[in-house]
């Protein structure tokens, strides 16, 4: 009987990019956002409800001496005796950091899943990058790429990942600014305290996060039976279970508790949390995260 799960080789980010594009193509531009945002606000460019640099009309106001004559709206001014300026709404792009876990445990793929967790994480991250870049967000990848506003941000991330590579472990948070968002795609199998510590540090910096907790179906359902030796791909530790099927119930309970702890913390921090299994479609996670992200962006924009 062949083993249920295996460690696969890392996915080339070029390949992941291609699949991410396919995933992203399935989603119309900010479909979810479009349902929420009123038509006056162009999707993605987050109107700040105040005067400033932007493209959209905000208000006419009387000309005050000292202002640039070039900003006078002559058409409006011609209608009466005053001279008016045309104010634009101030618009600002949001910075969204994306991060996919690169630890060896992510390379796990069981027979029930079509891809490894690492591959799925990359696809989700790159697809998000593609979507967000379309709507003009600043997109960064902590430790790999500084935020850029670029239509081909996904490609840039993929290229950067290929050339620079990524260190395993949690992302460096030194460059993360306030009010930025971060999407963390990982299996979060590190000890709960460690993960929570990282999250709280990020939260203290004013960064808002979204967790996509990936799990292989075998990790969730524990379909093992009989005398089985388990090996941790990260540490190499081994554990032998005499009759693995007797552990199924307990394991599922603890695994769910682990997840629940993460989700609880996220709720407390007002972060998003999404559990995703690699035997489901990547689009499902993508839609959910994107919906969450779009709503969150909107909300954070209003907060200012």
């Amino acid at each position, binding site marked *: *009987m062949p*083993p*249920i*799960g*295996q*460690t696969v080789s890392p996915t080339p980010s070029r390949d992941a990019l291609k699949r991410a594009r396919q995933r992203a193509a399935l989603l119309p531009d900010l479909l979810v956002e479009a349902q929420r945002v009123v038509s006056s606000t162009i999707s993605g460019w987050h109107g700040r409800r105040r005067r400033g640099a932007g493209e959209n009309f905000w208000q006419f106001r009387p000309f005050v001496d000292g202002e640039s004559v070039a900003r006078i709206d002559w058409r409006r001014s011609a209608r009466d005796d005053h001279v008016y300026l045309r104010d634009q709404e101030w618009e600002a792009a949001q910075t969204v950091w994306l991060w996919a876990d690169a630890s060896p*445990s*992510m390379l*796990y793929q069981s027979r029930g899943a079509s891809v490894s967790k690492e591959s799925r994480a990359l696809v989700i991250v790159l697809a998000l990058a593609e979507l967000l870049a379309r709507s003009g967000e600043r997109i960064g990848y902590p430790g790999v790429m500084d935020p850029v506003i670029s239509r081909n941000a996904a490609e840039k991330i993929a290229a950067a990942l290929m050339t620079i590579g990524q260190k395993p472990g949690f992302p460096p948070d030194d460059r993360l600014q306030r009010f930025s968002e971060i999407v963390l795609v990982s*299996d979060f*199998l590190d*000890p709960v305290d460690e993960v929570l510590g990282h999250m709280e540090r990020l939260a203290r910096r004013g960064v808002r996060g979204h967790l996509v907790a990936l799990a*292989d179906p*075998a*990790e969730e359902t524990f*379909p*093992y*039976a*009989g*005398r*089985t*030796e*388990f*090996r*941790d*791909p*990260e*540490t190499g*530790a081994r*554990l*032998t*279970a*005499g*009759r*693995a*099927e007797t*552990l199924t119930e*307990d*394991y599922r309970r*603890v*695994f769910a508790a*682990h997840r629940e702890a993460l989700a609880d913390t996220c709720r407390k921090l007002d972060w998003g949390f999404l559990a995703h299994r690699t035997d489901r479609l990547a689009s499902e996670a993508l839609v959910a995260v994107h919906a969450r992200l779009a709503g969150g962006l909107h909300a954070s924009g209003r907060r200012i």
Partner: protein
Amino acid sequence: MMGGLSLSFGAPLVLFGLLALPAIWWLLRLTPPKPQTETFPPLAILRSVLKTEETPQKTPWWLVLLRLLLAAAVIFALAAPTLNPRDSILSGSGPLALMIDNGWASGPDWDDRQATAEALIGEAKDAGRPVALAFTAEGSSDDATPAEADEALVRLRAAEPRPIPTDRAAAATRLSTALSGGAQPSLVLLTDGLDSPRTDDALQTLAGLSPEQAVVYRPPLDGVVGLTSADNSTEALVVQAVRPEGSSQGASFTVHALDEQGRELGHAPLDFAANASTAEARFDVPVELRNDIARLQVEDGLSAGAVRLVDDSFRRRRVALISGESSDLAQPLLSPLYYITRALQPFADLDPAKSADLATSVPELLQRHPSVVVLADIGVLPQAASEALQAYVENGGTLLRFAGPRLAAQTGEDKLVPVRLRRGERQLGGALSWAEPQHVAPMAASSPFAGIAIPDDVTVSRQVLAEPSSDLSEKTWASLADGTPLVTAETVGAGSIVLFHVTAEATWSNLPLSGAFVGMLRRVVSLSRAGGGNAGSEAGGRTLPPYRVLDGRGRLTTPGPDVEPLTVGAGEAPAVGRAHPPGLYGTEDGYAAVNLLSPDATLRPLPDVDLGAPVEARGYGRSESLDLMPWLFSLALILFALDALALLALNGGLARLRRRLSGGSGAAAGLSVVLLSVLVVATLMASPVNAQQMNDSAPQAGRLDVDQAIEATRTTHLAYVETGEDAVDEISRAGLEGLTRYIAAKTSLEPGHPIGVDIAADELAFYPLLYWPIEASAPMPDAAAISRVDAYMKNGGTVLFDIHDDALTDLSGAVSPAQKRLRNILADLDIPPLEPVPPDHVLTKSFYMMERFPGRHSGSELWVEALAADPEGAARPARGGDGVSSLMITSNDFASAWAIDDSGQFLYPTDNADPRERELAYRAGVNIMMYVLTGNYKADQVHLPALLERLGQ
């Protein structure tokens, strides 16, 4: 062998292998089963669950025990243990005198006997004693002189069971002659357990040897059975059988009837009631089959007694009866056939003429190949009948004629009599005669009737007379006391003609009233060859060469050098002996069967034996000692299977299997394993049950589902054949749905929803038209289904075959798979000639005026049954033929063109984008439907002028 123990080992050295058991134990304890290795990232979580670190690095004790047992079983098995080994029998020091029965009853267990004798001789050899060997079924050449054990062993191995009774007295004499004057012998009798006529003499002779030790072996007599007679009576073939007297328990055997090639023609149970030593088996098989029987044998009865060979005389003869007057049944006692019928009924199958017209009835009777044709008082035969009879006789038939007024009155030359007859009859006795009615002379010894006693009161008062000739006496089978022939016969070709010079009824003679008449008729019939031949009319006392003889195990073999030709006297059973073993004597063309047991034979068990010394009774010992090797190996195999199961359980394989079964998606492999095992068990244990169930379910296929039938006939439905391909069937359904709606919209016909029919099971007669899309990948309907379609077409249904891949128009001439499939289907159908729809066919006018019949494609013609050319109908605009074409073939893919979805949208584009093409496809469908429903009605244009006239007003 380790003497003295009840358990002995053939190879005791192997037992040293048991010393290896501790080592095996140590090895088994050391190596645990290897776990499955699995990569598992959430190991930290798992570790928190797995509280006790399981390290059972040792195999469970019971598994070790199991494997040790397994190893021990194999070692013991290899040591070839035997339970109750044979112990030594012989005592004394003189020669060993062995008298071995090798008669017919020793056939089945001859090997046991031989083995016992070998063991005895082996013992004698070990003791250095000479051995005197006598076989009771051998002749005087059998040498009983004491010899070296090795020499005796050679003779023993060369000995064979003989298919003849034993002659113990002769063998005993040989033995006593050979041993007289020597030391006191150890006397061992290996008997077949049956008494034989001179056993007492033999025992006395042997007792005269004053043996030192006497041992008598007797086999169990349970399986000994002999067939004593086979009687081919009117209603059944009855086989009589005997078994040794004194058997108290009931027993049942099976008797098989085989033909010459050894094929089984039937079998019948042979049940001995308790305390009965005879039984009979009845074969209820037809006469024609019975006549093919060449051999009857008891199943598993490997002896000459359990086989009954039959020859020509066994076969039932078919006798054709023809009389000059066929309608005088009002006075049956005066009918010439009455006495013949009564005489022959028990022995032969009678076949009276059906009509009085001899010219037709005689050839008709002869076609059934009777053995004997009886002509009772027929004077002149029609030419045709005469020639037919002549040919029949020359080909080996027997013609039995009786005189009478008509024969006596005939004037012309009659070829079908054995002797020339004087015209008129001779009257003996009576008012105007001096002569007294004549008695019948005793039968001559050379006559076929030899042995038949004629009662004194049989007299002949009238007869026809033969012209005197030189060979008259040779041709005479029976004569009157004054020497005039009463029965004459002549061989003609391969057959013979027999003439009774008296009538077959009691007017000329009272011979037909006597039992001698029955005997004579029966002799004539039995002389005739079954199936229209003659076994030879020469007188009794034939000498027949041996053709095939039975061997000691009841098999037919070529005769050996000491088998002598058999002289068969008339009516007496030949004695079976060394020179005449049971078998077939004669030639391939005709033979007489000689059987071992006479009909009155009985079998008696051997009485207690008195040999003048204490007699030790024994059975043949093979069954006593038990070879344990196979049992031990079986045990080892079972343990091995248990071990495998235990390993599966330990490694979680069982749990995995269970989960796979409940899982569903990946269950195929597991399921197949279980199914396979279930199947094996089912076929092993319950195959009769299965057959029964199949029989039960078989008639259900033809039963009509009433609800479905009412539904189908409430309104007209279009129907399509379910091909088994879901996609194709869905297109058919959607297509016919579209056509149904179109028809309902445009015509007065409002069909119900289309119905898919399973041609193998559903009733087809309800549907006027079957749409049958031909799909090469669909399963081929079986022959029964196709014959149902054939019946449907013959009963007026129409099948529209649609090879929907546009293949009929393929110019390459290649045959597409769908076309091939259509050919295969049509191959079994009764198909009339076909033609493309001609311009004047009624199909083109049955509703719309159509020139072609497009579907989704438009390239193919619509093929229908060819109309007969109609010279006078040439002027008419439409021809309909006499009925509706029972099949139409197209490859235009009608269904796709008609197909609509639920909202009425067309599902498939037509090849030609013109919307009219779709319209035409629907119109084609309407025309076909109208044609199917109305037949040639539209072609009936007789009233057209009148109609036009009315329209004009």
